[in-house]
C-alpha cells in the first residue's frame, strides 16, 4: 500500500512507545555507552595530566577542555559526522579507520560525543583526584611506593569511587546529547519519535511526549541509584577530603 494514497490508522500510545523503543533505543544506547567510554579514556588521561603533569601538559589539557566545552554539541556532531570522510581522505588517505561509509555518520557522532564528554569528564576526575585526602598519597609514598604506583593502587581507586555520582550525571548529559544525532539522520529515539510525527501529524505532541518519558525512565533511576546512594555510601566509608 502506498502511504500517500491511503493514510494508515494512527498508532496508539503503546505502539508509539514500542516503535521508539525498538527502533531508536539501540542507536541511543550504542552512542551513549561508546561516547561515555571514549570520554572516560580521554577524561581520565586529561585529569591525570592536569593534576600530575607539568606546566605544559596542564596547559595542553586545559586548552583541550576549553575547546570542547566551548563548542556546541550540534556543531561538533555536524562537523564530525558530515565532513569526517573529507577530513580523513585529506589527512590519512582513502580509508577512514576502515569504517564503511554507511557507518561514518554514526562514527562521527560517537567522536563528537566522546571528545566533548572527555572534556567534561576530565573536570569530574580532576575534582575527584583533588578531593582524595592528600594524606593518602603521603602514606603510600611513605610505604615506599613510586608516584605512579601510589596513583594506580591508592589514589585512582578512591578517586574513581568519588567520581561516580558526578559521572552518573554525565551519563544523563550524554544520553540527552545523543538525541542531536538526528540532524545527521541517525535514527535514535528522538528521530524515531519525529518519524512518527511526520507520518501522523496529529501525533506531534504525543510522540515527543512519549520519547521524553522514555529518556526520563532511562536517566532518572540510574542517576538516582549512582548519585544519591553512592554519595551516602561514600560518606559512610568516610572518603573524600574530610
Amino acid at each position: 500500500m502506498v502511504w500517500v494514497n491511503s493514510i494508515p490508522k494512527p498508532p496508539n500510545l503503546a505502539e508509539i512507545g514500542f516503535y521508539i523503543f525498538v527502533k531508536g533505543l539501540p542507536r541511543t544506547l550504542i552512542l551513549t555507552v561508546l561516547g561515555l567510554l571514549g570520554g572516560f579514556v580521554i577524561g581520565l588521561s586529561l585529569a591525570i595530566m592536569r593534576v600530575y603533569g607539568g606546566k605544559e601538559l596542564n596547559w595542553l589539557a586545559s586548552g583541550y577542555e576549553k575547546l570542547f566545552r566551548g563548542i556546541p554539541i550540534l556543531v561538533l556532531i555536524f562537523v564530525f559526522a558530515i565532513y569526517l570522510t573529507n577530513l580523513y581522505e585529506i589527512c590519512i588517505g582513502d580509508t577512514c579507520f576502515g569504517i564503511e561509509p554507511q557507518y561514518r555518520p554514526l562514527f562521527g557522532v560517537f567522536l563528537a560525543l566522546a571528545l566533548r564528554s572527555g572534556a567534561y569528564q576530565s573536570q569530574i576526575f580532576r575534582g575527584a583526584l583533588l578531593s582524595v585526602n592528600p594524606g593518602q598519597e603521603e602514606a603510600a609514598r611513605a610505604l615506599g611506593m613510586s608516584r605512579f604506583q601510589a596513583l594506580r593502587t591508592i589514589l585512582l581507586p578512591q578517586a574513581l569511587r568519588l567520581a561516580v555520582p558526578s559521572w552518573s550525571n554525565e551519563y544523563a548529559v550524554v544520553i540527552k546529547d545523543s538525541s542531536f544525532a538526528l540532524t545527521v539522520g541517525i535514527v535514535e529515539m528522538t528521530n524515531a519519535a519525529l518519524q512518527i510525527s511526520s507520518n501522523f501529524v496529529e501525533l506531534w505532541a504525543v510522540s515527543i511526549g512519549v520519547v521524553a518519558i522514555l529518556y526520563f525512565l532511562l536517566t532518572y533511576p540510574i542517576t538516582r541509584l549512582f548519585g544519591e546512594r553512592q554519595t551516602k555510601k561514600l560518606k559512610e566509608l568516610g572518603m573524600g577530603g574530610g
Partner: protein
Amino acid sequence: MKREIAVVGMIVCLAGGFLAGWFIPPLFTAEPTERKTLLEEIQDQGYIMVGTDEPWPPFEIFNVTADEWQGFDIDLSAMIAVHLGVALIMTDMDFDLLIGACKAGSIDMIAAAMMVTSTRAEQLAHSVPYIRVNEVVIVQSVSTINITSLTEITAYTVGVQSGTTQHDTLKDLGMTEGVNLLVYPKADVLMAALDLGTIDAAFVDEPVFTVYAKTYAFKSIFTVPAEPTALWCRWEEPELMKEINKVILNAFGDGSMDLLIEKWFG
C-alpha cells in the same frame, strides 16, 4: 610514570594532529596517482548512499507503519541501485546540508526533490531533470488571503523550509527572517505551524501540499512555475552521473517513469 606520560602525550599529539590536519590540509593534499572512481567504489562496497530530507511527501517519507522509505525519489533511487547492482541506503539530514554533505563525500547522491538552480549547479552536477512541479502558496482553508502576484505575499507572515528555492525566492523579495519569514528545518514543523496559525501562509512544492492537504484543511492560493527537479552528485564523478542519466532516460523510454508519476502524483 614516564611511559604513562608518553602514552598520554601520544593521545594529545593525535588530537593535535587531527586539528592541524583540519587547518592545514594543503600540506597533505598530494594528488593520489591512481584513484578509484566513485562508481567503482560503490560497486566494491555493494551499496549506494543517497541523501534525502524526510519528510517531503510524496517525494520522500519514512513510513513507520511499513518500516520503510517510500516516495517518488526513493523509487527512482531504487531503480538506480538495481541498475548498478547494489543495495540502496537512504541517509536523512536537514535539506540545507545535503549539498555540503555530498561535496564532502558523506553521501554519494542527492535525491531530495532538489530543483535545478544555477548556484547549485556551480557546486554539484545534476542529472537529466525527471519531473517539473509547481511551487504553491498555501493557506488555511478558512483564510481570506488572496494574492494576484507573489510579491503581495510579503504583506503576510510566510513559512518555508530552510534551504529550499522557496526560501531563497522570498528572501530575495525582501522578507525578513523572524519578522514575516519563518524558516523551519523540517517540513512537518512548517505544516503544523501553518495549521496552528503562527504563520499566515506557507510556500512549498505543489505535491507536498497535496499530501498534507489530506490531513490539514489547507488550500492553494497562488501557483508559481518552478525549475525542474533532478538528482545530484559530484562533478568529479561523471561515470556515476552517466549511469544515473541512463536509468532516468530508460525510465522515460519504457514508460516506467509514467507509472511512477501515476503512482505518486496520480
